[in-house]
């Protein structure tokens, strides 16, 4: 009984499937279906791929400087050495992030110099000034994270990295350097 029911049902299913498949096919042909990765209609204005950095020629986006290369950590974070004293190796400056205004970039440079001299408070306050001018620059937030790391405030360093990542958009280099610093900070917390 059950077997015969099953046998009777199969042609019905196939027929119904065929009809609906045809209908869907015709429907698909009748409208031009576009699912843009980022909506660009007036109803949905365009979202920039990486809003932190406008991709105009004057402001090249950060990772394009290193096409196809494995992402470099532009900043040495002393992972093994104790960081209570001067950093074991001199700070190499982070590759200049594109900046919307010269002021923020100049402040950022001042902060990096202070960081290089282990003047953490000075660096922190100067970075806050840069962030007031460019609050969505993920690299500036990353520098804040580095400063906190040097001050051994690891949980704040992690949170600042997460903040930096929230501005990364499609900038995988920024994501990577943040992930690396987070990993170091987590390890320090465990220790």
């Amino acid at each position: 009984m059950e077997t015969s029911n099953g046998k009777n049902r199969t042609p019905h299913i196939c027929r119904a499937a065929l009809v609906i498949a045809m209908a869907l096919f015709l429907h698909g042909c009748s409208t031009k279906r576009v699912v843009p990765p980022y909506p660009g209609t007036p109803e949905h204005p365009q979202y920039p791929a990486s809003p932190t950095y406008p991709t105009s020629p004057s402001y090249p986006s950060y990772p394009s400087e290193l096409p196809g290369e494995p992402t470099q950590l532009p900043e040495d974070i002393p992972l093994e050495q104790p960081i209570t004293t001067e950093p074991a190796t001199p700070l190499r400056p982070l590759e200049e992030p594109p900046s919307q205004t010269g002021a923020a970039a100049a402040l950022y440079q001042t902060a990096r110099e202070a960081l290089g001299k282990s003047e953490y408070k000075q660096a922190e306050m100067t970075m806050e000034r840069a962030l007031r001018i460019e609050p969505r620059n993920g690299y500036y937030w990353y520098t804040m994270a580095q400063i906190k790391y040097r001050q051994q405030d690891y949980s704040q360093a992690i949170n600042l990295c997460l903040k930096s990542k929230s501005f990364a958009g499609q900038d995988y280099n920024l994501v990577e350097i943040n992930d690396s610093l987070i990993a170091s900070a987590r390890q320090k917390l465990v220790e």
Partner: protein
Amino acid sequence: MRNKSFFILLPLFALLACMVIGAIFSIDYLKDQNQIIRDKFEGNRWAIPALVYARPLELYAGLQLAPGILEKELQLAGYRNEQPVQSAGGYFRNENSFEIITRDFVYPTGPEPSTRIQVNFRGNRIDQLTAADQGKNLPFIRIDPARIGSFHPLVHEDRLLLQADDVPELLSLGLIAVEDKSYYSHHGIDPVGIARALVANIKAGRTVQGGSTLTQQLVKNFFLNRERTLERKIQEAVMALLLDFNYSKEEILTAYLNEVFLGQDGSRAIHGFGLASYFYFQRDLKNLSVAQIATLIGMIKGPSYYDPRRNPERCKQRRNTVLDVMYADNLIDKEAYEQALAAPISDIAPRESGLNRFPAFLDLVHQQLKDDYDEKDLKSNGLKILTTLDPQTQWTVEEQLQKSYETLSKRSGNDSLQGAAIVTGRDSGEVLALSGSIQPLDSGFNRALRAKRLVGSVIKPVIYLAAIDQGYTLASPIMDQAVELEIDGNIWKPRNYSRREYGRVPLYKALSKSYNLATVNLGLDIGLPSVIETLHKLGYDEQVDAYPSLLLGAVNMTPFEMSQLYQTIGSGGFYQPLRAIESVMGPDNKLLTRYGLKVEQRFSPEQIFLITHAMERVMTEGTGAGYSPARQYRFAGKTGTTNDLRDSWFAGFSDNHIGVVWLGNDDNSSSKLTGSSGALRVWVDLFTQLDPSVNEPVQPADIVWQRIDEQTLEATGAYNHSTMLPFIRGTEPHTFWEEPARHLQRFEDGARRFFDQMGNIMN
């Protein structure tokens, strides 16, 4: 014989005893007086109230700033308009270009010296910023911040403390020449001077000349009261001698220059030459002209009688007398003397004082300081408090509140309308502006901090964020249908504002249209504990009772507390306590406390991206869309209205700022305004001025977009009756063509169920 000698010796012994006792007492007396002098002179000589500063204005090429606003900022910071610009604290504006000499200021990062700068504008933007002396471009510079208040008793002495090095030589020499010629030769009192004054006064039959030395004058003002008895006079003389014995002439003179009373500004007494120099001439003491120094010296005789503003002629005569003495004593040459005689008495128009100009913000500063400093520290220890107040934003908030009050009170017929507003930096958590009243200078009830009001629908993003946290998407179907709940024996039957039911609606629409029934059903589905937990994660510290009415905003909060919730959402899910203070420094400019940037992730950027999108929909198609300017920018926010239109709320954010506006009546009567007809308008008008750029949310990498059919709430490729929505990767629904196998499987499962049922019926 024995008796005789006894009678002779007794008085002698008595006299001797008296002398010994007297000597002991006089030594004790001198010791006491000496102790009084030492205690006061070596401790904190004056109670200096904490000074509160606005944020320094950072200038750089490219900064969006109207020239008029720069001038207003300069004036707030006490800058003088002068041509040519002579010294620190002066500026000159030539339409779109400014020449400014900034003043020295010690920041927590260190001292920044006075610099002559040239600022050129193109439209409302700084085009060029140069160091005028070197002619080279400056990347940035900050204008020393405006003093916006101090913490002091109601009636108080105010002074800017001077060190010996700060005092121009002409001032000290001129003062000595006029008030106490033998200052450097006497020992605190001047018997010759007293005799001379005595003769002169007897001759004139009245007091025409004083014999007090500067030391005695200091003693009188500093240690004693105004009593005029012989005993006081003796005490004054003794103390003057002791002071002179213990301390150098220079120290005593500096103390005098800081102590002397030089005028009155309402309840504030102007003491010392440091403050008087600013009060009368808006200049640092070292930048005063000869004529100005002479004016101040002349005023010691009677600050009110010789007030340069009220009695300029009398003041001028007195000044010229001082100049005569200076010239006669060869302190100035003929040229300087003649130039000073010809100078006007004051080149400064009386100005509006920036002090306590922003009472509601100062109230917040005071509240936040109380955690770390006691009242005595604030009133007497000369602290320097650098705050986050942005005067431009504060002015805009005040103007907008007043303007809106005029329109809204007229339209709604509600004269007693009140309001409060807060604006913060979106990623800094800094409080940039805070108004506790419709009237800007109202120092009474601070509604922004203290008016605990029902919040209504402005709380709804909390519930929707809690739902997203539990895995709901913006397309999740929510039932907007009637619900009845028993609360404490009473039946609670919430309704939509329109009194209608909308049936099955997508989550984003339930929020943007502020559907009450959908929100209650959603809140009950995810559970009240989860909503309360989200509320706390967003930064609300008070205890909340788990009543379902919480879902429609039956909880009392202040606008400031509401700001904290929206701050966490607006800053991408990062909690940061709202800060009004940047740092506190001691009187020696040493950094005491820093209130730096701190963040703590409470929600993922993806979750925040979704809730922000739904809040943007509020402005484009929901309850915020009724006010057309709102649709031009991509603002995100939420309206709130409470029963009988008692409260009108709006909270939201633009590209760089987060703001909360509340309107209502103090007596909790109907304000006759909904969130949309009241607070939304104030907020939008305010934010279109503060942030006239289109909001550009940063899209996290794990966000994908999908077109959703508004009826079926399924993925679709068709444009009609559909909308694009963001999803966290992996939660997005798919169309047939994206995942045909899965859809065919679903279809087959459905068909199989259908035919099973049909078969069952037929059998």
